[in-house]
């Protein structure tokens, strides 16, 4: 049953979600039974929800802002409000509830579909999409159900993730019009055509239609190169459960690093072309990219790491020196 603004209300456990023309309203009951509420800009809420859904709740914490978000336990997910906000937690007004992954995924997918209006693409940079605001107006299912682009060995190999082209619906982005589109020279001997292999990674990235949405482009065992193109603000504040690395390949991104339990500021990290930095496992981070830029996110996807993380054996810092 749609509300006065044409949107459906949703609830999961003790959490309720409603949207109006400008805002998402999240309400919950505190541990001692008091009603509590939080308000988010509708566009920011949908951009965050989009990432959480598309990434299968990702690694660790997906903070929609400094109040609400999810923690991935890899077959269950915590939904929380205020639990990782120092003052709110101290005041006892927070709530955390655990759900089977399928339950929260299905609810989030329904909410994303219902609250996203025609013309608004939550993956697009703000200058490249329409408005998220107003009375319910259609949907944008094709934009919100994009498949993640995941190479299993390397982009461009036979049977693996294909190169991006004009014909495949991936024109060069306006901000990367000056990125060379040349292909590497390949001189395979007969029979080695699928082993003497290279591709233009920068050209591939210049044709990304989305922002803040890593693809897999090359894989060594469980080492995943996950490059992505970034413009404006990372729509979530990511609290990783493991060390994560960033390699800035062009232009620049400015990161806030805050303590992931409380949100207290820890550092700013200014990354320019050629810079490498790690995000320690105890932080949460959010990036600001003034111009569309190419960021290589480098993840360790070893499934055994989850046990090390649970037992506290996984390292919090990338290296001791």
């Amino acid at each position: 049953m749609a509300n006065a603004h044409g949107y459906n209300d949703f609830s999961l456990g003790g959490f309720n979600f409603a949207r109006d023309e400008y805002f998402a309203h999240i309400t919950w009951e505190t541990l001692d039974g008091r009603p509590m509420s939080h308000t988010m800009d509708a566009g920011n809420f949908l951009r965050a929800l989009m990432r959480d859904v598309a990434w299968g709740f990702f690694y660790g914490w997906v903070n929609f802002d400094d109040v609400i978000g999810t923690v991935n336990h890899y077959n269950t997910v915590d939904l929380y409000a205020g639990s990782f906000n120092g003052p709110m937690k101290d005041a006892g007004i927070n709530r955390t509830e655990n759900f089977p992954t399928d339950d929260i995924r299905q609810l989030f997918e329904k909410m994303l579909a219902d609250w996203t209006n025609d013309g608004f693409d939550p993956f697009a940079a703000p200058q490249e999409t329409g408005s998220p605001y107003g009375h319910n107006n259609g949907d944008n299912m094709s934009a919100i159900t994009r498949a993640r682009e995941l190479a299993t060995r390397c982009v461009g190999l036979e049977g693996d993730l294909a190169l991006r082209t004009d014909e495949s619906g991936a024109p060069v982005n306006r901000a990367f019009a000056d990125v060379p589109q040349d292909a590497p020279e390949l001189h395979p001997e007969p029979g080695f055509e699928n082993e003497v292999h290279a591709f233009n990674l920068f050209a591939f990235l210049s044709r990304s239609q989305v922002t803040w949405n890593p693809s897999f482009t090359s894989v060594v065992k469980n080492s995943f190169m996950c490059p992505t193109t970034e413009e404006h603000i990372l729509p979530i504040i990511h609290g990783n459960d493991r060390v994560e690395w960033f390699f800035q390949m062009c232009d620049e991104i400015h990161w806030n690093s805050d303590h992931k339990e409380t949100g207290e500021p820890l550092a700013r990290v200014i990354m320019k072309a050629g810079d490498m930095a790690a995000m320690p496992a105890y932080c949460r981070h959010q990036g600001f990219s003034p111009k569309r830029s190419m960021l290589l996110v480098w993840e360790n996807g070893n499934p055994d790491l989850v046990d090390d993380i649970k037992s506290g054996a996984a390292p919090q810092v990338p290296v001791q020196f």
Partner: protein
Amino acid sequence: MAHQYKTRFGSLKDYDKGRVEPINDDVRHYAFSNCFEIAENSAPYEKVVFGQNMEYVMEVLRAEGNSPWYTCAHDEFALSMDGEVEIHLVKLEDAQTIQDTEKHGAITVEGDPQGTNMGWMKLGRGHQGMLPAGSAYQFRSSQPGVIILQTCKGDLSIERWADICQSA
């Protein structure tokens, strides 16, 4: 008319390094470095680790002249961040391949590589090439360039974190 954007890449000759601005943290926990600065201070083909995630690493190589022939039991990937580099590939005969299929990282091939010529490739900036498991490969570069290698930490990996990372 639409605004013309200028994409800023770095190079050995022209790069601008960012920084960590600590508020309440140890800057060393961010292992902040720059691939062009590392390559500027490296000998040709030193494999300098500038990212590590458990057994996995990212290495910076200064590409200059001909490298030794390397081989590795797993795939590796080379990304050119500056300059043009050729990669020549040979399918090694059993005697020279790494016997331990779980061995991490590249080793140098003893003597000339014996086996079938697989061909070669030339990478320019932004191009990423595959170094297939079990092959031997050699980098050749007439001008200094910068390669990023996605691999596992191995016998040839060099760690000098205190030299390459911001520490205060």
